[in-house]
């Protein structure tokens, strides 16, 4: 697709991206709760929490890694270009900014429509126990 053989990323032209935006892309750019949990467990996506440092310090989730949105341009080397990068924030507005930026930069990227608040609401009690057992050994 957008990757060369040596895995260097090829940036997309923003004008072209918008002109090509269609119903397929409208769905493809999103990822919901069930799919995120499944693909994360299967190691097919890299999840990034793009909130500010103060927000991360106040509370954090045991899934994915923390790269604030305003540091993303300088930390692209921490992203695995062989995986789809899923951006998350409390709801989904900032995650979509990250997703768009990464897409233009040539990554495969989606944003988490459920948001981190929906994620923590879902992963409580027995579901928290079972899922963390399933993904044991991953980051954090």
């Amino acid at each position, binding site marked *: 697709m957008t990757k060369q053989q040596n895995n260097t990323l090829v940036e997309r032209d923003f004008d072209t991206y918008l002109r090509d935006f269609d119903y397929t892309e409208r769905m493809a750019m999103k990822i919901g709760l069930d799919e995120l949990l499944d693909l994360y467990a299967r190691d097919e996506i890299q999840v990034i929490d793009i*909130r*500010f440092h*103060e*927000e*991360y*310090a*106040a*509370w*954090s*989730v*045991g*899934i994915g890694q923390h790269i604030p949105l305003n540091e993303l341009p300088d930390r692209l080397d921490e992203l695995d270009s062989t995986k789809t990068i899923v951006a998350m*924030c*409390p709801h989904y507005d900032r995650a979509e900014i990250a997703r768009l930026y990464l897409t233009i930069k040539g990554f495969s990227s989606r944003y988490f429509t459920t948001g*981190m*608040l929906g*994620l*923590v*609401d879902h*992963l*409580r*009690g027995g579901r*928290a*126990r079972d*899922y*963390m*057992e399933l993904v044991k050994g991953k980051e954090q």
Partner: protein
Amino acid sequence: MSKLETLPSQAVPAHMKDVRISIDDFLTQWNEGACEFIDIRVPSETRVWKMGFGKHIPADEIPEHLEELPRDRLLVIACPNSDRSNIVRGYLAAKGFNAKYLNGGLLGLTDKLKGGPAAAFNLEPLQ
């Protein structure tokens, strides 16, 4: 301070302010160092989602940790919503602590602690 026998008398509208604390009031008191925060969820829950402040003591371990809890400050008890925290708050109140459960729970608190309110939040308030 209330004992077990007096707990039911608090379960009337006029006394609920002594039983629970709103998220905004908690944030104010926390930033002033006026309260302690206790997350009473089970460990598998805090592995998924952890708060970066206060104490984490699972509800079923509370009876063994009473010595660590301050008696000179308000204890704010929290779980995802407010069912489990209310049970623990009742237990601590019966043990003579000044305890309230967090109305709105951790879900409400985490929703609040984003952007500006997160930046203004004092993770380690002056005691």
